[in-house]
């Protein structure tokens, strides 16, 4: 044990872990990237040399200890190496979302007082240049990709490999500099500042220390038994703490291989190439896989359809039990083995899930059906719950103890409690240092005893598993005092493949109502099968048949709500199908696709008012922002439809007028 403790102290920062890995795992692949159609790879030793050159190059450009440096782009090995390079010489990386518009970037760059920005390509450079006059502290911009950069003559612009060349030169002339700088780093130093996407107000810069990240990564690696032989695919935004935790933190701690996809469009194909052993994805991706399977099965031959239906039935019956190691009859085991040969195996292989030992999902609840589907196929899918402030996760489901409607018990080393107001609070080795330049917010979130307030409402069940219901501030009451948890209702709606997004209203109203966004792929397929013709999204969304389809979904949700006495009163009485998709570009969703209620309440006020009037339809005009940043307006007439609600016994009450 003392050896382990000593090793922990000796490798208390990522740069120190990097140097250890360069020796321990020297010839093992650390990174791969598909480029020009071929997987290129770098061993730990090669990667460490690249990072050393880059770190020295940054020093040659004048980066000093404590300087904050932005990293902007998609998942590229060189951008991950930038984290190391910056940390090696005592800088603090500040990752930004690659799809942020220039104004959003300007806020973070200004707030973090960033001195240098490392950009993936011309697109990101252009965004930074367009706001540069508002950023007096920003001095240098580095770009990884040379493409399109030929005619940029700004003296403060450098190509990444030129910086590395300077670094090699600097390294030769300053022997011992690099090792000295790495040794200066301590576990208590701020490792990164991760800006939260922020459902309310401006993003906040969460400061995480090396201790926060290395300790929680170590605990997680031990719990799951991760080794240097894992393969993971890095495709989620590198500015998101979850990706940082897996593709950077655990990568350094366990020494496994991180694979970067060729482009954001090829992720699904690259997933098949790699066949990762550990995988994290938001619920939308797992739902997407299942929708894809279901759509393709509908087009398959009859024999195949029947085989699929029979064996998924077998899997649902005994798959989860086999996965959890519970007793299963010999006959079922045989059938399951046959199913693996005929259906599950090929299916998993097709999606690139064959080698997957562990899969995680989080961020939003995953439908129980979808969740059990994967577990029944033998994929150890687990839900986790966490936030940027906790360096990734707070609760995680354990092998053999998975309950579909909870996020599991507290993670190792974490203490979770529920306050009297119903808010989830926790203490964790991963709990953040504070918000950067925002002491007021730090005091609100991190109390004197070290408890972090999540702002989520939840309950702990009899097995000690946490169940998250909603954002604490969003849980409200109807006029008659009934509990109204909008996200809980919305998530129930979103579990239907036809519903892409939903927004429930009801706080301080007489009854609950909802906006629904249809899922274009699923609904257009459904419409095609039934010979319903339409011209575009808006037209399809307004079809009476689609309204009937959506009403069916809502009434099922109402029936489920009726079963829970506390929530029975918040059944949806009236709804409308939105004419456009809610979009992060219009500010209606955050970049991580969470609904921004305040903005929707303002923008769609006439529609919400109509839901609470007797009107049968409402005409609307909305501003939309196109991908190039220009804006236009959209007009549409929307029908408002009633939905049946259910009594406690389950009989439908009359549809509200």
């Amino acid at each position, binding site marked *: 044990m003392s050896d382990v403790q000593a090793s922990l102290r000796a490798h208390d920062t990522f740069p120190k872990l990097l140097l250890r890995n360069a020796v321990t795992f020297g010839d093992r692949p650390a990174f791969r990237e598909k*480029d*020009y159609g071929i997987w290129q790879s770098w061993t730990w030793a090669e990667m460490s040399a690249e990072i050393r050159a880059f770190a020295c190059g940054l020093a040659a450009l004048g980066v000093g200890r404590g300087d904050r440096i932005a990293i902007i782009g998609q998942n590229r090995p060189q951008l991950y190496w930038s984290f190391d390079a910056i940390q090696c010489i005592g800088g603090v990386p500040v990752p930004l979302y690659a799809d942020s518009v220039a104004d959003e970037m300007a806020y973070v760059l200004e707030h973090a007082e960033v001195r240098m920005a490392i950009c993936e390509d011309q697109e990101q450079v252009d965004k930074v240049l367009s706001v540069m006059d508002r950023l007096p502290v920003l001095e240098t911009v580095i770009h990884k990709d040379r*493409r*399109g950069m*030929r005619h940029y*003559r*700004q003296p403060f612009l450098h190509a990444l490999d030129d910086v590395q060349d300077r670094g090699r030169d600097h390294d030769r002339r300053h022997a011992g500099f690099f090792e000295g700088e790495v040794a200066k780093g301590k576990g208590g130093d701020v490792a990164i500042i991760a800006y939260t996407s922020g459902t309310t107000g401006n993003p906040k810069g969460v400061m995480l220390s090396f201790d926060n990240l290395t300790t929680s990564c170590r605990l997680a690696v031990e719990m799951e038994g991760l080794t240097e032989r894992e393969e993971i695919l890095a495709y989620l935004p590198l500015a998101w703490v979850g990706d940082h935790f897996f593709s950077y933190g655990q990568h350094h701690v366990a020494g496994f291989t991180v694979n970067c996809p*060729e482009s954001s*469009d090829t992720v699904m194909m690259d997933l098949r190439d790699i066949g990762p052993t550990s995988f994290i994805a938001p619920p939308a991706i797992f739902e997407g896989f299942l929708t894809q399977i279901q759509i393709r099965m509908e087009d398959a031959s009859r024999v195949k359809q029947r085989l699929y239906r029979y064996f998924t039935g077998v899997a649902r019956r005994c798959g989860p039990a086999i996965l959890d190691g519970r007793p299963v009859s010999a006959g079922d085991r045989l059938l399951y083995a046959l199913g693996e040969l005929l259906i599950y195996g090929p299916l998993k292989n097709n999606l690139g899930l064959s080698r997957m030992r562990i899969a995680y999902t989080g961020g939003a609840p995953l439908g129980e059906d979808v969740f059990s589907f994967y577990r029944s196929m033998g994929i150890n899918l687990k839900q986790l719950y966490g936030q940027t402030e906790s360096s990734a996760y707070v609760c995680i489901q354990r092998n053999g103890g998975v309950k579909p409607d909870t996020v599991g018990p507290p993670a190792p080393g974490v203490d979770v409690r529920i306050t009297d107001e119903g808010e989830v609070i926790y203490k964790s080795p991963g709990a953040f240092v504070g918000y950067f330049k925002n002491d007021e917010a730090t005091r609100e979130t991190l109390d004197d005893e070290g408890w972090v307030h999540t702002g989520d409402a939840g309950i702990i069940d009899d097995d000690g598993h946490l169940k998250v219901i909603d954002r604490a501030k969003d849980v409200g009451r109807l006029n008659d005092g009934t509990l109204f948890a909008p996200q809980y209702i919305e998530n129930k709606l979103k579990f239907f493949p036809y519903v892409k997004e939903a927004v429930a209203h009801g706080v301080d109203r007489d009854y609950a109502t909802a906006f629904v966004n249809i899922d274009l792929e699923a609904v257009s397929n459904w419409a095609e099968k039934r010979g319903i013709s339409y011209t575009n999204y808006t037209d399809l969304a307004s079809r009476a048949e689609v309204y009937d389809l959506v009403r069916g979904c809502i009434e099922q949700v109402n029936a489920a709500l009726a079963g829970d006495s506390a929530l029975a009163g918040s059944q949806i009485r009236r709804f409308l199908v939105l004419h456009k998709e809610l979009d992060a570009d219009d500010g209606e969703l955050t970049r991580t696709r969470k609904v921004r209620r305040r903005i929707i309440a303002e923008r769609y006020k006439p529609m919400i008012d109509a839901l609470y009037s007797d009107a049968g339809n409402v005409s609307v005009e909305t501003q939309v922002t196109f991908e*190039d940043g220009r804006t236009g307006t959209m007009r549409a007439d929307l029908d408002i439809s009633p939905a049946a609600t259910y009594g406690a016994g389950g009989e439908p009450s009359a549809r509200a007028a």
Partner: protein
Amino acid sequence: MTDIAAASAAPAAAGTVPVTTEGEILLNVEHISLSFGAVQALTDVSVAIPKGRIFSIIGPNGAGKTSLLNCINGVYHPQKGRITFKGQTRSQMKPHEAAAQGIARTFQNVALFRGMTTLDNIMTGRNLKMRSNFLLQALWWGPARKEELRHREFVEHIIDFLEIEAIRKTPVGRLPYGLQKRVELGRALAAEPDLLLLDEPMAGMNLEEKEDMCRFVLDTNDEFGTTIALIEHDMGVVMDLSDHVAVLDYGRKIADGPPDVVRNDPDVIAAYLGVSH
């Protein structure tokens, strides 16, 4: 379109040095006339395309734009006049000879092998560069194998350049129109042309596809220094992209010059908007 104008103007402001010196002419078309029986398609048309530039040919329907392109790459043979490419004056040239000289083109209607993948379609663009014989290629043996790997690498650079990695293995018949046009551009680029002829590269595209294509045309010109002659109806595109514009009407050239000059030329306005008599 303003974005594109800004993007192309920005580097110039930053002190661009032109790729070639002014006046070096890559293709010189002098006084050509083309007729089909009694129909006069082109009458005494002269254009000079400077090396390394983007040259647009515009004009109303039936003005002879495509006929002019067809004369340039040897599909039609003008009855009068002469065409000089890279200093060589030619008389009767076949299309494949034009291709071998370094002229590649895309078509007004997409002309790809629909059942073949994006990758294979672009590989066909390397055809003229393949040196090994048919038998060795069929056996994929010896020098033929090495050669194919070399060509594949080149094609992968084009795929990367055009950002079509995700459709590398997709049969082009299944692709949306905008992407098919991009694949066609890829096939033309695979021939490493000195002169690239684009016949209405943005026709039938939506705004986003047009903007993408504009960017690829500009990038092609910028990265590879390829001289580009294009026919286009979208005036916004033409005025933003081109260094030089020639206007045809009823088979005659009625104007020729930088976009700003052509835009204000009374003859051009009359040809496009009509004029009261």
